[in-house]
């Protein structure tokens, strides 16, 4: 071991370590990004990147979309991390949450109530799925996955039967409507007045919610007793069981949180975009790619993966729309080739 360590030591004495080098590169990138966002662009740059408005919007949209992806993928990754259950019905949970959020918001008139219902109902659905379906197939990863595929097929068809093929939009309350004016100058008019970038308030709120939930999940995992059990279960399930913990209760909790988050994301996403058949597959695929890139079972990985995929998708859409969707999959394949377990994943 010590023999292997030596080259890096000699390298550090000769200049900077690899870590420092990466730090410098990171700082440089951050500086360039900051300049791109806040400076008034010269014409040649506008010519290359369409316009500053397009570029900054793509970045912002990428980040806010990442927030949404994170909400969906974090549940997926938690469930997999603990139970080794690849729940391919996760997208259906998202869509069902969105429909429930729509119904509740529409009937009561309170959007927040819709959000709460989306979380609560789906949390219950999650527990029911875990207790009545997946627990019966415990230890058989493949059959659990197959069952989840079956559930997603039936669920998609039943939702089509109930809500038909129409497009629904969940009405957001007025205090979430409107646009923020950001301190970013996109252009200077001929009379010298600066044009500031406006950005929908709602999307900023989605991002904020994702960050709050992300931090909340991290705190739950690292500062609470249940979180400790979950982390122990991720590392060694058999050992956790042997030490007298009621694993089934822990499993149910995780499934409730994971499915609830999917439902929550459904309502939030359904308000930002729309609710229609096919969204289940879309968000399932997004979660798959996010967790494959970020590393299965890791919340931090899900955040990193979501950010990468969200940005790639939006930048791709603006600058090379033809292959924009494919770009996200290229990122996935490259990650798999270089680091099969994902960026934050642990090799098993």
């Amino acid at each position: 071991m010590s023999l292997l360590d030596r080259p890096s030591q000699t390298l550090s004495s000769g200049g900077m370590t690899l870590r420092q080098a990466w730090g410098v590169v990171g700082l440089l990138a951050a500086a360039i990004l900051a300049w791109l966002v806040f400076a008034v662009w010269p014409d040649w740059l506008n010519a290359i990147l369409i316009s500053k408005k397009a570029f900054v919007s793509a970045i912002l949209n990428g980040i806010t979309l990442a927030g949404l992806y994170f909400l969906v993928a974090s549940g997926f990754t938690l469930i997999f991390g603990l139970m080794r259950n690849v729940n391919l019905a996760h997208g259906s949970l998202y869509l069902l949450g969105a429909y429930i959020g729509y119904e509740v918001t529409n009937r009561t008139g309170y959007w927040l109530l819709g959000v709460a219902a989306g979380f609560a109902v789906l949390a219950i659905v999650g527990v029911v799925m875990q207790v009545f379906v997946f627990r019966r197939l415990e230890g058989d990863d493949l059959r659990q996955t197959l069952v989840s595929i079956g559930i997603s097929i039936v669920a998609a068809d039943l939702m089509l039967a109930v809500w038909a093929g129409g497009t629904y939009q969940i009405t957001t309350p007025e205090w979430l409507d409107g646009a923020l004016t950001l301190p970013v100058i996109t252009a200077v008019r001929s009379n010298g007045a600066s044009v500031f970038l406006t950005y929908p308030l709602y999307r900023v709120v989605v991002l904020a919610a994702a960050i709050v939930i992300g931090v909340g999940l991290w705190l739950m995992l690292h500062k609470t007793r249940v979180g400790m059990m979950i982390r122990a279960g991720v590392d060694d399930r058999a050992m956790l069981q042997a030490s007298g913990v009621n694993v089934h209760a822990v499993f149910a909790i995780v499934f409730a949180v994971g499915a609830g988050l999917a439902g929550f994301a459904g309502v939030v996403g359904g308000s930002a975009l729309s609710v229609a058949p096919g969204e289940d597959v879309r968000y399932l695929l997004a979660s798959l790619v996010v967790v494959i890139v970020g590393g299965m079972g890791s919340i931090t990985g899900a955040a990193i993966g979501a950010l990468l995929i969200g940005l790639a998708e939006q930048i791709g859409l603006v600058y090379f729309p033809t292959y924009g969707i494919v770009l996200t999959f290229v990122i996935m394949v490259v990650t798999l080739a270089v680091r099969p377990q994902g960026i934050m994943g642990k090799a098993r």
Partner: protein
Amino acid sequence: MSLAIATGATTQRNWLEKLGPGHIILGTALVLYPLVASDFFLTQIGGYSLIFGMLGLSLMLLAGYGGMVSLAQITVAGIAAYAIAILGNANSNILGLGWPWWLAVIAAVFAAALASALIGWISVRTEGIYTIMITLAIATATYYFAQQNYAIFNGHSGYAGIRAPAFWGIGWRDAKPFYYLCLGLAALTYAAVLYGSRSTFGMTLQAIRDNPRRMRALGYHVTAHKVFAWLLSGVIAGLAGVLLVWFNGRVSPGTIGVDAAIDVLIIAVIGGLRHPIGPFLGALVVVLMQTFAIDIVGAERFNTLIGMVFLVIVFVSPDGILGLWGRIKPHLAQESLRPGP
């Protein structure tokens, strides 16, 4: 002289015995099927089931013997189908290099096998259950790429007007020849998989499925064996893809969409992953349901029906219809011991 004849007879009997009465009856029935079936039943049910049976077989080879469940089999078949369209003749005013059919078929199957090996190489780098996710993602990526790319894949419209070849005075897309073509290739691949599963390679693969760590410790190159299984599976899926494009006369991104990818999995699982006959059974059941559901329950809730059947099979009998048969058979055998009326 007489001795030689005698040995000839015994080897013949051995051969027949090895084949087993089940295979002989099934084979005869399938060969005689065109005598009683209408053209529609020959191609739309018979041919189509055999094609999807082959696709299921290519999955069964990976999943049953190798423990790798792939959702990209239709993608591999699609690559062969697109290759036939691009290298051969299509009437979509783009590409259509006009190669002779046999060269196009060889190239298409080769391309499919190569693509399959590549997908395998990417996905065997991770643990078993990851394979299903990675292949699903790859299948979707290919679908989107084909849909967006006009230079090679002709975008959303794909290729139309692809004709099966005609030689020896036979139009191979006519009902009877096409059925026999499908039957021949299906039987060939079926026999190959059955034989291959008992070969050294097949045994090694199954051992790797059961305990990769031990096999690695014994000095086997686990990754190489798995990737080779993907390559073989790619050949079968590629052949199915060639038949599929001749059958449809067209290929478009819809042919290789997520729905189709999941259909192949459903077929293999419903039929059973333990024996190569399973996927063909599954294909027959699913194709019959797909074709006639609209007359019985209405097409609207077809997916609920097939999803339920799938769920019940996975829950009740992990080995599919074959597993059900395995459970019922002892009861039947018991019954047959009783004296007849």
